[in-house]
């Protein structure tokens, strides 16, 4: 009988030892995340319940800031703008990245490395520099206008950044230019996991490239698409640099984003940190909701 018990004990303590080792490795990182990320989040939430300017923060009506947000016309404009970018820019960018990735996954393509680097390079640029360069590109005397005038499409320079719709389009173009490469790299690595034999089988069965793309590539890439969609949503909802440097909030708040408005509320105007914290929390909740929805739709595990 003792012989039966001993192996069991050893098995358990080995398992326990493995567990403890695992926890021992995880603890320092967990502690740091808790202290550096979660504790400030809780404090930010407490801050968002306070009202007042500068250092005169006090606990008034707890939901005051949250109610104030929806009555603030500049904030509602920024919310609208951010969602517009989300709805238009993210699908365009992801589809473009997917197409580029499947084109560059072709085994017979020469200079693949060159193309991949060239498309990925925009992502390595500084956010501030590229925004400033785009701003001067689309200026009234800028490069784009010069080209359009020389091609005869326009007679005089069009003020892209001075009109609401064109300013938004410029921001969307800038975002697509910058982030397509980044997402393309994710799709490329996802595509490496699809066996070539699947494509061969499809070719033998007579599938056209379009059919291959939609019926084989996309379904097999679903986890990667989900990942990039969630990351892009997260990034777009927190958009800041383009709004600040490219359009400075745009003609009459036509391109201002939520983060830009939060910055204004915290540093440019008389500091109102409670209200700014409440707005940040709204962004957090929106990202969480959208991520949850996307996972429900996309993730078929369970």
């Amino acid at each position, binding site marked *: 009988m003792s012989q039966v018990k001993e192996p069991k004990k050893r098995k358990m303590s080995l398992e326990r030892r493995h567990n403890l080792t695992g926890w021992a490795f995880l603890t320092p990182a967990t502690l740091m995340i808790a202290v550096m990320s979660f504790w400030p989040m809780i404090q930010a939430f407490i801050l968002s319940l306070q*009202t007042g*300017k*500068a*250092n005169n923060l006090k606990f008034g009506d707890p939901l005051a800031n949250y109610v*104030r947000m929806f*009555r*603030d*016309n*500049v904030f509602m404009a920024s919310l609208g703008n951010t969602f517009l970018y989300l709805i238009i820019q993210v699908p365009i960018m992801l589809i473009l990245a997917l197409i580029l990735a499947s084109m560059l996954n072709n085994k017979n393509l020469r200079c693949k490395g060159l193309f991949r680097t060239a498309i990925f390079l925009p992502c390595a640029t*500084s956010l*501030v*520099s590229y925004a*400033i360069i785009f*701003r*001067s590109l*689309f*200026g*009234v*005397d800028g490069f784009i206008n010069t080209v359009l005038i020389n091609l005869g499409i326009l007679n005089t320079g069009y*003020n892209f*950044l*001075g009109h609401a719709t064109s300013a938004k389009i410029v921001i969307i173009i800038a975002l697509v230019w910058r982030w397509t490469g980044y997402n393309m790299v994710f799709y490329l690595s996802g595509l490496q996991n699809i066996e070539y034999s699947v494509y061969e089988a499809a070719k033998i069965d007579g599938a056209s490239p379009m059919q291959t793309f939609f019926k084989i590539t996309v379904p097999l890439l679903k986890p990667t698409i989900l990942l990039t969609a969630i990351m892009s949503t997260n990034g777009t909802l927190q958009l800041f640099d383009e709004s600040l*440097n490219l359009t*400075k*909030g*745009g*003609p*009459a*708040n036509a391109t201002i984003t939520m983060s830009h408005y939060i910055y*204004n*509320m*915290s*540093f*440019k*105007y*008389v*500091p*109102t*940190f409670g*209200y700014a914290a409440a707005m940040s929390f709204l962004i957090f909740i929106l990202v969480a909701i959208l991520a949850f929805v996307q996972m429900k739709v996309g993730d078929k595990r369970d």
Partner: protein
Amino acid sequence: MKRKILSALLCVAMTATMLAGCGGDSKESTDDNKTEATDDAAGDDAAGDDAAAGDDAAGDDAAAGGNKLTVWCWDPAFNIFSMEEAGKVYQKDHSDFNVEVVETPWEDVQTKLTTAATSGDLSTLPDIILMQDNAFQKNVISYPDAFVDLTDSGIDFKQFGEAKTAYSVVEGKNYGVPFDNGAVIAAYRTDILEQAGMKIEDFTDITWDEYLEKGKTVLEKTGKPLLSCQAGESDVIMMMMQSCGASLFDDEGKPALVGNAALKKVMETYAALKEAGVLVEVNDWDQYISTMTTETVAGTINGCWIMASIKTAEDQSGKWAITNMPSLVGVDNATNFSNNGGSSWAITANCQNVDLAKDFLKSTFAGSVELYENIISCGALATYLPAGDSDVYAQGDDFFGGDAVSAKIVEFAGKTPSNNTGVFYYEARDAVATAMQNIVGGASVDDELQLAQETIESQMQ
């Protein structure tokens, strides 16, 4: 063996970069223009270059103590140059004195000040900072404990233009030593005016209606507008407002946009100028400067610090002249003088040697005509009235047709009406800029002013 060496090298490289990263930040902020006239100016300088800002490590630029003072300011060619010259002037009588200037763009100064003051830990602040005049009310009222009261420091504030000093006076107390002059000038290309059959005298002491008419003539005969400005920035509007002493806030600090006859007149004037093509809007600071250097416009109206940027086009020397700005029609107390931008020196509460700082500022920026003569070369014009009487200021500037521009500008500064900037200046500025853009797009002035006032009130909560 090879792999071991390679992995060892990688570890060393990683550790080295980690340490370098922890040692200091190199921020990617852009260089500021001399004053804040436009918020965008804080974003880029005339050449549009990125410049690394000062080191972030707290120990380096915090207050020094002893015989050293640390200063935060921006613009090496202007403010930093002036502060270092002041250090030299003071060193003549105090040989062991030293001033350490850390280049910090205005937006960073504002952010660091807010962060330090909000957290209650002022130890990261230097002894002296340069602060935009428009931001004085906001910062001093929000964080009164972060600044030193200079009212009884021995500095004679009457030697400065009253409008200029008023920016840094909060509840009757002085908190700043006025520095650079932001008096508004109207600069014109005399050769282009000649082509249209006009002279600089035709643009002196005029009204905005006359300016519009003459501008249309110039546009017809030469194809060039008289004025350019940045879209989305309210500089021109604020200059016009201050020229008649009007403000966006009333005496109690409440926004007074609706029913503000001066503001309505200003916005109508601006819209008329834009529609006639006499005023063109550009998108950013660099484009604004290039409208002047590439001769797209026949003139400009801005703070006198714009002369340094105009002068970068050396081939246009002798073709420019300056005079005062037009005055508003149909508004009480309209004058031809105003102010745009400008900054003042403030002593932070973190200063370890407040007496030294006060004495330093008193002997240099508030007492030394020699200093102002030295810094005139970079275009820094004094608001210190005695400096205006000096011979150096009476010298002619060939770029502007041999005119004694400096003395003229100091005279303009003395005639500028003060106005009430208000604590919520930046909120009001943005709301007015938004309203102006909508009005130019065809909206009604009254509706937009109502909306702007509501926006400001909501942001003031």
